[in-house]
């Protein structure tokens, strides 16, 4: 079947034999965006988290057929080195990553959180950010999430927003 969607602002039409193929593998292996990670394949670790129409979704548990007509954002589309997303900027300022493997998933989940709750409390963070990090970067991540909220608030143009 042909499945069309937007990914990081670009329209894509994919020929997919099995519409139940997890979106994760379509993105990693067919579209070659490697920033979205495979950690467990069971929607348990959150390493594959990306945004679909702005909502955090674990792509290892999301059949590609459901992506038809939707807009997907991966870590590659969140921001770039010249123009980082506030979450990425905060991650840099707090020097969060260690091994780095789980980090895109956490950053995507955080980006979704800040859309819902622009100034999350520690409790909001504890409830919503439930991905798994083995290096134990949670301590810095929490600081970075608060910082990202601050950067995002400051970057909004008060006149045009």
């Amino acid at each position, binding site marked *: 079947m042909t499945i069309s969607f937007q990914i990081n602002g670009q329209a894509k039409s994919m020929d997919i034999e099995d519409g139940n193929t997890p979106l994760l593998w379509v993105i990693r292996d067919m579209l070659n965006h490697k920033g979205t990670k495979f950690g467990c394949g069971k929607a*348990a670790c959150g390493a594959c988290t990306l945004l679909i129409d702005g909502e955090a979704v674990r792509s290892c*548990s999301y059949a590609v057929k459901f992506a038809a007509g939707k807009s997907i954002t991966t870590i590659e589309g969140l921001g770039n080195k010249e123009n980082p997303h506030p979450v990425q900027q905060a991650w840099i300022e707090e020097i969060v990553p260690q091994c780095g493997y789980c980090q895109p998933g956490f950053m995507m989940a955080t980006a979704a959180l800040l859309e*819902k709750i622009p100034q999350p409390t520690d409790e909001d963070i504890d409830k*919503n950010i*439930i991905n798994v990090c083995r290096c134990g970067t949670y301590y810095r991540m929490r600081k970075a999430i608060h910082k990202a909220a601050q950067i995002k608030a400051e970057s909004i143009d008060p006149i045009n927003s």
Partner: protein
Amino acid sequence: MKKRLHFSLLFLGLVIFGFGLASSTGYNTYYVSETDSVENASSSEAFDKMMQVLTHERCVNCHPNDNVPKQGADSHPHYFGITRGDENMGYQATNCATCHQSENNDYSGVPGAPEWSLAPDKMKWEGLSRVEIAKSMMDAERNGGRTPEETLHHLTEHELVLWAWNPGLDANGNLREVPPVPKDEYIAAVKEWFENGAVIPSE
């Protein structure tokens, strides 16, 4: 005797409330019976069949009494600290739909069905007896203001309910257990029970 009197008063309160509701929704087909005098064998059998399903973990896991969805045959609390949230859908950014879609996912073992969510706060079934569950589900105050017709519809046609017979593979690739009554038999039993006046037996 004292206990019975108490029950009747409560029932009266429900009926009054029910009439208030009836005027706005226009229902008058079914009446919730709170009596053990009109039971017949067939209705009782239908009730048994229905309740074998409704007390099964496939149903009760999503009707928790502590706002924590349950998982699995052992009804353990949902992993990762998931709770009801404001709209029965989990938390703001990480919610049911972060992992659960409108179909089961056999790759991940994550179950899915349309409108995947917890039953609303008032529909707490976990830990209730069969009779208590039946009362709860027929009580407009605790069933989301459903008329008996709407409750019948929920029980027999709602895709999320019928998912119980198509629960998919778990994370280890094993089929989840289905309720102990086949779907068709269950639906027939529910309809029969409603047609016979939705009689809830005494405990």
